[in-house]
């Protein structure tokens, strides 16, 4: 770690301490490192085996993470960036700041993974979550559009689930995406800046459904012993979010970074994820998945490659904006 302390040379003692215990800096999103997230357990477990100091730097949400990487550029203190998703990896790769990982662990993803720079650590399907009390949950976007159900979604210009939904509609309907959005316009109560505002509104009864993940009901079931939530299964299939990590080319701890990426797809790290990040672990732990994770398996999985996602993003956003801006 290129500490500015070393650079300015004012605290030699601190510098020497840093030299004795190598420091691995992992930049990630806020909720990963909160005390309810995977961060604390991961830090403890990795430090126990690496003889190093693992430090997290939080940078808002997933989208903010890429902006932060770009802001810091090649001078970044971070060695690993953890928490980008497939809608962002093409743009992330284009910055030239990431190094190839040179490994391909066997993973349990619903798609095959070949990206040379980013390794998945967890994944999930986007889904509309509702109360089980809801009489007839819709089975597709078209049924949803035809109903008078109210939904809350996130803004694709400021949140990753919001962008995921736009990609979902595009992947499912292609040319008809604009038409679908027009049909949905009168169902949308409001569009929030991020996931947490939308989910909060839903829990407060502001909408019948909220865009979230298929694993959200499992959270309520496991953490709150509340079996009242469900995710609606859509016939078009569900869009996939794959969360990945990558090593920065400018890292001064490349070996440690590699070790961390190996650790990340290992049993210890993966077994923590399901009930802290509430996503599917990239490699199913030996103990299997917790209760509730199997209750909604979509019929099909939709996902654009990262290049495709980058190429169609602007057009898809424009369709979304035009349909909702009327």
């Amino acid at each position, binding site marked *: 770690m290129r*500490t*500015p302390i070393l650079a300015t040379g004012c605290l030699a003692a601190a510098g020497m301490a840093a030299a004795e215990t190598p420091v691995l800096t992992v930049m990630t999103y*806020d*909720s990963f*490192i*909160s*005390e*309810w*997230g995977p*961060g604390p357990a991961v830090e403890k477990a990795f430090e126990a085996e690496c003889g190093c100091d693992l*430090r*997290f*730097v*939080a*940078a*808002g*949400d997933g*989208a*903010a993470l*890429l*902006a*932060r990487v*770009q*802001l*810091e550029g090649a*001078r970044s*203190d971070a060695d690993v960036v953890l928490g980008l998703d497939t809608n962002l990896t093409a*743009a992330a790769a284009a910055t030239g700041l990431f190094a190839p990982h040179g490994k391909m662990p066997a993973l349990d993803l619903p798609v095959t993974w070949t990206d040379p720079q980013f390794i998945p650590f967890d994944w999930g399907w986007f889904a509309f979550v509702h109360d089980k009390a809801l009489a007839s949950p819709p089975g597709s976007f078209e049924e949803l559009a035809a109903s008078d159900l*109210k939904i809350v979604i996130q*803004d694709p*210009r*400021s949140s990753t689930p919001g962008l995921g939904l736009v990609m979902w509609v595009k992947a499912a309907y292609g040319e008809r995406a604009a038409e679908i959005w027009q049909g949905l*316009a009168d169902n*949308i*109560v*409001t*569009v*929030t*800046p*991020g*996931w*947490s*505002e939308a*989910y*909060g*509104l839903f*829990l*407060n*009864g*502001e*909408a019948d459904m909220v865009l979230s993940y298929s694993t959200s009901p499992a*959270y309520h079931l496991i*953490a709150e012993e509340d079996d009242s939530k469900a995710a609606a299964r859509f016939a078009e299939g569900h869009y996939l979010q794959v969360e990945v990590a990558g090593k920065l080319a400018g890292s001064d701890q490349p070996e440690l970074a590699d070790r961390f990426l190996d650790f990340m797809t290992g049993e210890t790290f993966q077994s923590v994820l399901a009930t802290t990040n*509430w996503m599917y672990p990239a490699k199913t732990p030996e103990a299997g998945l917790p209760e509730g994770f199997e209750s909604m398996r979509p019929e099909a999985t939709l996902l654009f490659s990262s290049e495709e996602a980058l190429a169609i993003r602007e057009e898809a956003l424009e369709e*979304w*904006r035009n349909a*909702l*801006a*009327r």
Partner: protein
Amino acid sequence: MAERAGTLAAGAVAATLGLLTLGTLAVVALQTGGGLRLGPADWAALRFTVWQAVLSALASVLLAVPVARALARRRFAGRGALIALLGAPFLLPVIVAVLGLLAVFGRAGLLNRGLEALGLPVLSVYGLHGVVLAHVFLNMPLAVRLILQGWATIPAERFRLAASLGFGPGDVFRHLERPMLREVLPGAVVVIFVICLTSFAVALTLGGGPRATTLELAIYQALRFEFDLTRAAVLALAQFALCAAAVLAAARLALPAGFGAGLDRTALTLAPGGWRRGLDALAIALAAGFLLAPLGAVVAAGLPGLGSLPDTVWAAAGRSVSVALASTLVSVAGALVLALAAARGARGFELAATLPLAASSLVLGTGLFLAVYPFVSPASVALPVTVLVNAALSLPFAFRVILPEARRMQADHGRLAEALGLRGMARLRWLVLPRLRRPLGFALGICAALSMGDLGVIALFAGEREATLPLLVQRLVGAYQMQAAASASLLLVALSFGLFWLFDWGGRRGAEA
């Protein structure tokens, strides 16, 4: 000589504000992060931003007039407490305020449940009207205070004269109140217009969709999602231009003197009886209901989990309070230096003190990040930077509170102080602090509350362990911890209001009339 030192200090404060606002904008603009392209969507955002701000400002001020009038001419038990409580929404963190509003006006809110029970159609709060509603909730209290202050400036002799000439309420309005309103209202409209111009979360959450895109959201998007720094800078510049135009227009229309001190110096006004008495009671009751019901909802939502908050919340609360106290000291000291210089007639400082009001906090944070990044690790300066930014962002309010009293002090006692050679620290200790105790207390209170609630730039700088309470609330919601988030929000509100009350009380206690 003393005057020159004061003016130099004011110049340094003004230069710091300039660097923080325009300087950070330049830093962002100078990065080559993209091309200059303002699309039709950006222009739509510009139009919407101005339109919602105009509507919000007009609605806040027009609705505030009957409330302020009723409060000005009626005396009743609990009036002082009511005026203090009515100020609370202005000090609320925006996200907390929005949740409170939704508990009352949302689809599942009290109002709609009432309508349903009566068999009436349900009202939707989402859309332009929802944005305006939220802005009125947040800013009407400010307008009420500004206008109430206007009533207090009408000398009692005028009302006595009006009474002796047998003026009816209509005549009083025409000859006394209307001229005062003409002087006070434009300034109030402009202040609230500028505040609403940089609105972000309110417009996005209640706006109902991309129709309600504000400039600040477009900036957020450019910074966070497209990493188009040039576009963000251009949008921020447009926001600056709008604010500057509004502030200059206000200077021509006479900006109101302030909104703090002297609430109860209100001279005896004419209090007409009959149906007007009922009307005043109605205005006060409606305003109190409108402003206090969402506050009640925030309290009700947060109360149950207050006892079982995780330790991190208390740690973050402690951090927030210390950050707020430090910001407050810096902010009020800066505002005092500027106000004293402006009161001595030095030019330009009023504009400098208004600059932060027009700044985009996103651009400010990004610019600061880019500026410090080559030299130090951002996480290591997260708290000092937060202190500085919070101080800068709350300085305009402190300045407005202090300026009128500083002017009066200069007019009443400036000459005597000079004749006695009272300068520097001696002048501060024996003249300025005792004379300005009341507005300083009020300014400290406002700054403390605003700094407590403001997310500011800490989100960009904070590492693992530096979270403040607002940031932690956001992290709690992000981790499905809704009850803890509601309770932490209540704690945040209680601490903000507590700090405000403490400082304001300290200022009033022992202050000379």
